[in-house]
């Protein structure tokens, strides 16, 4: 995966994205997070063509118009980019193993009908892929205004052996408060929920190491 066209200012560093916003929509979260973590590369994935083009244009405009003169720190918004992609199918194509430290699922499509449940972004089979791209200790942030979906995501993540729930307070104590605040209110969807006086439910999980099974050969793993 060639990141030089996405993050030209970081070409020499050889960095890969650490934050990924799955279904980033109009880019609200990434735009809010970019200045907070100027050394961290972040990528939005959006399946809709028009929306991803909008975000593309928005990022270019931000990069050009908000230039600062201090050469020591990286230019603003050079660390954020978007790709038009189907994250459910091609996540592993974009991110190397254990390369992400944060994965965001903000207000995903609820797919209310039972027969559409398998299209939900959180599913027992997809969680394996998210666990693959997330490093151990990495955090999955989910938020939604649909309570049923919240319960669904929470129970699936909790049942998955490689994720364990982490409370909002603990994350805030670790200094991730600004991220959580951005998750709550920086996106268009989030603002719409507020306008309609809806409720938001946050569920965060940490990626943990798999438990070693007794008798299992570990030699293969050490070759990495």
């Amino acid at each position, binding site marked *: *995966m*060639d990141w030089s*066209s*996405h993050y*030209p*200012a970081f070409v020499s560093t050889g960095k890969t994205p650490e934050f990924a916003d799955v279904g980033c929509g109009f880019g609200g979260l990434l735009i809010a997070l970019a200045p907070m973590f100027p050394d961290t590369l972040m990528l939005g994935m959006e399946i809709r*063509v*028009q929306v*991803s083009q*909008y975000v*593309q*244009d928005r990022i*270019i*405009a931000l*990069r*050009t*118009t908000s*230039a*600062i*003169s*201090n*050469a020591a720190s990286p*230019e603003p918004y*050079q660390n954020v*980019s*978007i*790709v*038009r992609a189907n994250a*459910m*199918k*091609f996540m*592993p*194509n974009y991110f*190397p*193993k254990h390369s992400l430290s944060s994965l965001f699922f903000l207000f995903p499509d609820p797919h209310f009908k*039972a027969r559409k*449940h*398998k299209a*939900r972004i959180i*599913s*027992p*089979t*997809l*969680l*394996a892929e998210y*666990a*693959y791209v997330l490093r151990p200790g990495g955090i999955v942030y989910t938020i939604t205004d649909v309570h049923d979906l919240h319960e669904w995501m929470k129970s*699936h993540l909790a*049942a*998955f*052996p*490689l994720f364990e729930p982490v409370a909002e307070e603990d994350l805030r104590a670790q200094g991730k408060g600004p991220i959580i605040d951005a998750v709550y209110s920086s996106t268009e969807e989030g603002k719409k929920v507020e306008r309609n006086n809806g409720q938001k439910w946050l569920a965060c999980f940490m990626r943990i190491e*798999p438990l070693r*099974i007794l008798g*299992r*050969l570990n030699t*293969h*793993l050490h*070759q*990495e």
Partner: protein
Amino acid sequence: MSVFPHSRLFLGPSKSVLISGPHIQVLDTHTGNLLHSTATLDGLETAKLLKSGPVRCSTVDRGFTYVVTSGEDKKLKVWEVDGLKLLSERELPKKPTEIRVTQDGQTIVVSDKFGDIFSYPLHLDPSLERTESEGNTGTTKRGTLASHENPSNGTLILGHTSLLTSFVLTSDEQFVISADRDEHVRVSWFPQGYVIERYCLGHEKFVSAIHVPSFAPSQLVTGGGDPVLKLWDWMSEPFIVVKAPISRYGRSDDDDGDDGEQEKVEKIGRRGRKGRGKKAKGKGKNEGVGEEAMQEQEQGEAGQSMVSAEGEGTEDVVMGDVESEAQVESERVTQVQAEAQEAEATTVEGALGEAAEKDKLVFALRRIDSADVHGQGQFLVFSAVGATALFFCVFPSSPQTKPPVVQSLDLKKPVLDFTVGAGGHIWVLVDDERPSTSERPTGESDERAVRLVSWLDGKLVEVHGAESKTFSLLTSLNTTCVLPATASDLKTLDLYSALSSLPKNVDPEHDPMRRENQNQNLDAFEIESVASSRAGTPIPGGSKKGKAKSGGPTQRELARMKNKKAVLAKMQEQEQAKMKVGDGAGAELGGVTDEERENKKARAADSEGSVQAL
């Protein structure tokens, strides 16, 4: 009289199992005697069997005690080989694509078209079944698998997000390697399939066959719609060796591979300017050494091996629905050009347009297997859906060697499947119902459904005549095991469906990204490229060159272009400001980003009046 072609053969030390259409037959491996057959079941049972349709997936356990089959009806049937007694019948959630049994014979593992792999106990415990079927909903652990419901209480091992074409369990059964239609090859723990060890990415088309050779258990061979076989070291950071098949697959009267090569090289040379294929696309992840090695090898072998594009025209009834193999063409030509050192990368669209006129061929690997032939070496053998040849090549012992040349043995009838038996013999099942390509007089060698092929000096040759008669199993397979079939039976068999079902319809005309870019008229495109070169901020995600679309741009696109122009205007303004300030500041041309930074420093000093130090 029409007969069912044999679709699968399992060779055991004492018993062999043959699958033909909906029927299963058990033979004695040495004498060839037909021991049991589902064709001889009495009325009611036969009717039930036939209702299940042709057997689509099957496997036997290591001890040849059980045979597991599944037909059109998604029912998983477990039979005892001895007596062909049906032990159990379970419903699968989706149509299966591959069935395997673990070495201990206790677990059946099934992959399906939805993309999941489930495991089931081989022996069905009726009491267990009853208790688990209650309490299926709610927030129980079962509830969290509601999206992957299983009517037979199978355990979800793992899932892909597209059709799972094939999987293997590694020899130590610690890992499961699975491949799907979205070009992924995934190595996961077994049975904890939710832990993904790694991906082997690099295929550009669906992957339909994977194989781990028993003599090289750390290597993986994969193939599919790409005209290459890829060899991976799946246990560590995968590096790949790419092997391009020589052939003319499809039909041809000319058995001689070498002549074919020459022919093809000329034809390809004549095609002239072509685009660089999608090899450059950033989807694959080939690490370090492997990537260079791969490119080198591709260039090296370009002279030796080409892939046939020329279908054999109207005679080729087997190919069915064929689609444009344009990608293949441009890849191939890329190899030629790489060698000839012609550079220019033109558009993919250009290449596709030119290639569209050519004959179109779809390639789908059916099965890959390996043979360790005493005294002759180690080989890989593979077959393709609809192809009349069996392909083989030497198994490369070390990655540094050039990829081996792929050779083929044309059997004149489409190869349905093959089984590698003891002593290096390969039993090839062919579709006798198809008309033969050549006009050879019908001798005995033409009318047999099962061919025996053996190794001679490192090449495959067919075993004919007197020698073949010593294999009574072979005779039996071709005579006593042949079961009659009606024309409608044969139609439902649909043996070559993979050619139409597996490829994805990636029609460049319908690629939404491309159309969007086309809508921007060339004016706007120039703006973009100027912007890129001036300010050094290429558009994130890159923009593709495209030919201008005939219709005008839509409102939305006009608005977008307007915005872009505004941004560019602002950038130009800022640049001009910088020009005025100091030529000294801008003189350093140490790279685009440095320049940009200097520009911005100057800009800040001048136009924004801030007190930032230079």
